[in-house]
């Protein structure tokens, strides 16, 4: 058995919805059957074998080669297995993912990990806006699991995030943790304006002082016992976060506008 490998044949002009291509949905299918699966692209539906060269036979170990940012919904509602992506991914990477592993060697578009409820998503690169956020109509962003981003992330990281852990080694944009409901976001780099806007609950870990708007208020400096526990749980992760052992923070809480009890912890 070798990894089922989908190599993009040419750069598409329109976006392609790859949601039918997950390990669980492809399990037990022959190359011919996989090739016949139809993918939405613009107003057309394209056969999978018209879009990708298909090789290998182990659908539980799915590889995208030569991937491009027009390929949306990779790992959509994925239930098991592993997807490795070489190249960039489009929007909605790991959308409503439930279990399994996605490793991206490249950049991802918007709404990565939106609605994700389990598994891990490891992005060796940067992501667009709305990482771990909820799409309109959904009430919860990420609902569980782990996301690691080695690069930067855009605006609105974790908007309405409900559970789970997002660790970003680079910088993030504006409105980080907006309307966050629960869960943990760590950002090693800088964050943009209006961090924690409308935050209800949840924890945002920062390593430098951001600009804070007036309805996030200082709760003083503290040594918090849970941080040891948290960093211990990070210790095995393939991330720079694994090497951190700090538990002294400045604690800001809010957003008071939203009667929020979220916290922004800044390591001192």
């Amino acid at each position: 058995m070798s990894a089922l490998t989908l190599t993009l044949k040419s750069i598409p002009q329109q976006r392609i919805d790859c949601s039918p291509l997950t390990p669980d949905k492809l399990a037990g299918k022959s190359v011919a059957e996989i090739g016949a699966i139809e993918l939405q692209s613009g107003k057309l539906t394209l056969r999978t074998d018209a879009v990708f060269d298909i090789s290998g036979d182990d659908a539980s170990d799915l590889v995208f080669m030569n991937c491009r940012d027009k390929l949306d919904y990779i790992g959509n509602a994925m239930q098991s297995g592993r997807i490795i992506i070489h190249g960039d991914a489009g929007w909605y990477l790991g959308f409503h993912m439930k279990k399994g592993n996605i490793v991206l060697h490249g950049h991802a578009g918007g709404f990565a990990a939106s609605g994700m409820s389990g598994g891990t998503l490891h992005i060796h690169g940067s992501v667009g806006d709305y990482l771990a956020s909820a799409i309109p109509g959904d009430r919860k962003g990420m609902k569980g699991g782990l996301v690691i981003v080695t690069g930067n992330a855009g605006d609105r990281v974790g908007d309405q995030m409900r559970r789970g852990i997002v660790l970003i080694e680079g910088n993030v944009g504006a409105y980080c943790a907006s309307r966050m409901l629960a869960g943990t976001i760590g950002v090693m780099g800088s964050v943009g304006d209006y961090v924690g806007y409308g935050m209800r609950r949840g924890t945002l870990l920062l390593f430098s002082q951001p600009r804070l708007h007036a309805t996030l208020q200082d709760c003083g400096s503290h040594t918090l016992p849970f941080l040891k526990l948290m960093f211990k749980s990070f210790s095995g992760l393939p991330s720079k976060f694994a090497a951190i052992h700090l538990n002294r923070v400045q604690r800001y809480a809010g957003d008071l506008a939203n009667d929020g009890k979220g916290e922004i912890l800044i390591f001192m």
Partner: protein
Amino acid sequence: MIINGVVIDDTFAEAFGMRGTRVIITAQNLKWAYNAANAMTGFATSVIACGVEAGIERELDSSETPDGRPGVAVLLFAMGSAVLMKQLETRMGQCVLTCPTAAAFSGIEGGDRINLGKNLRFFGDGFQISKQFGGKRYWRVPVMDGEFLTEEKTGMVRAVGGGNFLVLAESQPQALAACEAAIEAMKKVPNVIMPFPGGVVRSGSKVGSKYKTLIASTNDAFCPTLKGITKTDLSPEIESVMEIVIDGLTDEDVRKATRAGIAAACELGAKNGIKRISAGNYGGKLGQFQFHLREIMA
């Protein structure tokens, strides 16, 4: 069977199925971990009136605890899961939540997951914070010294309670010395506690009483001062009997503890007045476990 001049009765300890759980209590230092644990395991000698039987199993150094602080492991046993859960919550709330710097964690992986700090979170009046790491949920409850940190759940397993043996000696000091030696040895055995004061109980009981309202009363057959007026089980030279009761997570744990305890008591031997080791049972009708002393010591 005779060990070092001590007669091992051909009898058995009769023990019951119980529910058991373990809690790891950590604190800024061992002293405050003990303060919490002592309070939590206080008044927990017998399920008859305390609800649970509880005790400190052992000390844990900082490499053994989830949060890297020193701590102790506490075992609690009860006759049923409902009462165990209720007692655990009550004791957590009054003894650990209240104790400066103390934190509580699950001491048993697997088993049935029962509430450890789950409902204590409401003390936080809405300011409590839930965190999930490594598949476990923790609660952070703001309190006056900072934050009370507790794991949400711990494990509950089927356990064994009421393992025991009796030390029959020529004098009270000699009986006590033998029991102290036994407890010292038994504490090194994991997964067990000896719930009575100092691990030793002097008020062994029998089933029933002349008083209708009582279901148990003093075990007159082993009371030395009644030798002449009751159907005694004591030979004339026995002046004092003490019992060690053992609760363990498995029957094997109880067996190991029993063996360690009897061996230590017998170490003192007949020359120190230790004459006989016996055990309490109900004729094998009530308990599902039987610990035959001679088998254990063989």
